[in-house]
């Protein structure tokens, strides 16, 4: 969301945005890295702390608001998008962030997330996906891989997991992105774009829970493997990845996306590659890209899948209010009370 202000916000540092509370995440938790990225980013955005609100539900991710020196609400499990909708719609002057997790947003909170995206409420939604329930000590989550053995699934999970990017696109989200906790620069870049987007911006962050699900994303996010395993999506550029960009994405004549070798003797020419287009009105390409990877063990797209503009919900609400005032005049309470059929009883002389 871009909030225009007449007066430039005062310059701030990371320290200004950091609250006085001791951070209570487990040592080694990926959340520290995400928190650092946000705290470093906020001073660069030129926004005011008093106009910034972080809203969370329940979970480890949901402790986030306590560590930001802004306004914040730590609400109830799954309901942050609902509270955030009420706030964003009544206070269009605010930057409202929702910080949530794979359990909070995709299990109990699935319904509210869907509708906030569908309505395009002006929010920046950060979903920390660690594929586990951390706060309650290790049950499986809606993004956990099938067969996962956890406290509540000692014989292995039977659930097909969600793909949060596909889900968000299916819920009509206009801005959908993915990043991960091992690349601060990447996170800051994605968060910056999400913040700038007016409307609902959905960002999935692969986050490592080192206590209950350690290494879930290591195959694709570690420094050693990420060049080969992360497909960086960049608008307007052919989709290439791997060391020296030796791999790329093509679309076959059946409309299916495939990973191929690029260049060299046996590879396809660069012209054959799909050129990423985040602004395409139809989410079909973004959806196909989201299906390239079945999980964080094979090459996975990251970056911004989709970024299209459409009016945000709060602006539409405000427009209706303004239009009503223009047509009917500002509301008059006396006229309202007398708007039905009325009659008068005179004083008896």
């Amino acid at each position, binding site marked *: 969301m871009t909030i225009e202000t007449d007066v430039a916000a005062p310059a701030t540092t990371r320290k200004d945005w950091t*609250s006085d509370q001791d951070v209570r995440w487990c040592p080694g938790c990926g959340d520290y890295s995400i928190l650092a990225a946000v705290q470093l980013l906020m001073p660069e955005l030129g926004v*005011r*702390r*008093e*106009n*910034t*609100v*972080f*809203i969370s539900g329940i979970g480890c991710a949901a402790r986030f*608001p*306590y560590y*930001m*020196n*802004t*306004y*914040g*609400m*730590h*609400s*109830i499990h799954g*309901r942050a998008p*609902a*509270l*955030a*909708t*009420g*706030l*964003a*719609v*009544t*206070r269009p*002057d*605010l930057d409202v962030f929702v910080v949530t997790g794979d359990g909070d947003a995709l299990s109990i909170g699935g*319904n*509210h997330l*869907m*509708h906030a995206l569908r309505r395009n409420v002006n929010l920046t939604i950060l979903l920390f996906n660690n594929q586990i329930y951390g706060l309650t000590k290790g049950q499986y989550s809606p993004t956990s891989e099938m067969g996962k053995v956890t406290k509540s699934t000692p014989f292995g999970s039977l659930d097909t997991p969600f793909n949060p990017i596909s889900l968000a696109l299916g819920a009509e989200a206009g801005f959908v992105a993915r990043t991960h906790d091992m690349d601060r620069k990447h996170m800051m870049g994605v968060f910056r774009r999400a913040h700038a987007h007016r409307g609902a911006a959905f960002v999935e962050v692969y986050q490592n829970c080192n206590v209950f699900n350690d290494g879930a994303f290591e195959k694709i996010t570690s420094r050693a493997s990420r060049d080969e395993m992360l497909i960086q999506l960049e608008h307007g550029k052919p989709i290439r990845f791997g060391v020296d960009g030796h791999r790329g994405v093509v679309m076959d004549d059946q409309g299916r996306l495939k990973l191929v070798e690029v260049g060299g003797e046996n590879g396809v020419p660069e012209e054959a590659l799909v050129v990423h287009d985040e602004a395409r009105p139809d989410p079909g390409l973004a959806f196909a890209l989201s299906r390239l990877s079945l999980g964080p063990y094979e090459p996975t797209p990251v970056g911004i899948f989709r970024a299209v503009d459409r009016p945000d919900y709060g602006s539409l*609400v405000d427009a*209706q*209010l303004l*239009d*009503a*005032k223009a*047509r009917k*005049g*500002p*509301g008059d*309470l*006396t006229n*309202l*009370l*007398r708007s039905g*059929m*009325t*009659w*008068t*009883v*005179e*004083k*008896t002389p």
Partner: protein
Amino acid sequence: MTSSTGTPRQVRKVVEIDQVVIRFAGDSGDGMQVTGDRFTNESAIFGNDLSTLPNFPAEIRAPAGTLAGVSAFQVHISDHEILTPGDAPNVLVAMNPAALKVNADDLPAGGTIVVNADAFDERAIEKAGYSANPLTDGSLHRYKVYEVPMTSLTLEACKPTGAKPRDAERSKNFFALGVISWLYQRPTETTIRWIAERFGRNPVVAEANTLAYKAGYHFGETAELFESAYEIHAATHEPGTYTNITGNSALAWGLIAAARLGNVPLFLGSYPITPASDILHELSKHKNFGVRTLQAEDEIAGIGAALGAAFGGALGVTTTSGPGIDLKSETVGLAVSMELPLLIVDIQRGGPSTGLPTKTEQSDLLHAMFGRHGEAPVPIVAAMTPAHCFDAAIEAVRIALKYRTPVFLLSDGYLANGSEPWRLPSVEDLPDISTQLATEPNVTLPNGEAAFWPYVRDPETLARPWAIPGTPGLEHRIGGLEKQDRTGNVSYEPENHDRMVRLRAAKIAGIAKDIPPVEVDDPTGDARLLLLGWGSTYAAITAGVRRVRRAGGTVAQVHLVHLNPFPANLGQVLRRYGRILVPEANLGQLVKLVRADFLVDARSITNVRGTPFRVGEIEADILDELRALGGRQAPAASPPANEMVASRDR
């Protein structure tokens, strides 16, 4: 339609009566609600006092002619002050056999039935479950039955419009209205004007309805079917401007007024549910008042959005009925912990579970009191009459804003859809209920720095400051975890939790000194029996008490608007009475609260039929109790039963 001698009769006489209760009944598609509504309006304009009770089925449109599809509208009009829609009708207008079957038993012997004779064909009679035609088999011998061929006369009257018979037939409800309007000598101009306006975009329908209405009126006048017409004079009303208002409309307008008076923007997060949806509809029309309404994806999102809006400085409101209150419980608890102003409106209906969506009950009181885990006290305000919903809304908002707390506002289906004349208040006379937002730091730290702590309380109200985003220097985070007294930081410390639970309880209890003490209606000053009630039972209890006093009995009455906390003097008042009866449309909920709090032997009178109390049943219970008490407070003898006048409120 001439007499047996073949000569036309004289113009009938007009008999003066002081009141009548009329029930219009027909198929769901027959337009009985419109008919009842129009008759009500004619009578309101004329100046009668009145009270209405629509009674419609939950289904949108059950198959035509079935018992399940019967829809009715009861209206009580009078030349004096009345409170209830009437225990039983004096007159039943039945548009088809099913309507007759469902409603005839409610009519006392000697009552009047006006039927649409054309609807009584064999098939319809059978569908209604009759084994023989009730009009001819003598089963209605206790009543005065008038058979009017409404359908054919309507078709005849509508011929000039060129409308197809199937369409013209739909105007028969206006024919019925015309007949009854003549029978009670109602003015006709308002209905004719209303038809023109309402059906303005469909001139054929407008013309058909107008012709049918006039034909019905004319029929009454010339057909010589009725021995006389009736006149009910205007009642004496306090001078002023009046409108006829339903509870839901009054409540919606009350919320708009309250937001104005509180100087806060109004935000409604709601989900459609019978019988509360009309409040969402009404508020969504008034965008020029700056009212924002969100039809949320579910009940929880509705209250969640309202609470989020409250964090930003709006008056957050959510409206629902019983099932929605269940779903909203967790969020109400969060609001208790976060201490933000929030209004939860419950238009109670028959429960449990899906229950009776279109029938009335007042069985959510204990849920409002206790329906959250943990110690989570919430103030409760309950409306007494349709018009009182306006004032109750303002009072509930006043408490929410001043004490930074969620507040339950209780109404019910009877108040929501029932109507009464309302003397419009002057806007200047409405109270200022605005409150201050925090703008400055409120503590000085040991190092001399100023800081803002969100849980430093006002010493008098124990309310915490309301600091909204956008205010520089007051940045803070609040949530559902227990928090440290004053700082608001998360705290699990044992002594702190004990202190915070007690502080939150004390804040709500302290509201007692900010609400009016109960006033006891005890004209002789020495009553030994007290009737205690809350909510919509006000009408029937008051009418019952008046009847008993008219007959010479002595009884006192208290009606509560504030259910939590109770007014400060309630215990003292209750302990003065040897006997306390608590009529409730539930199995005994207020009675439990007063017994627990005050150790008084209050007893229940309960009704869970889904319809309001009958004045007669409350009157009978009062008389029984007075006789049991002995002494001289019971009336000397029972008044003779007068079956023609089914109900008297005076």
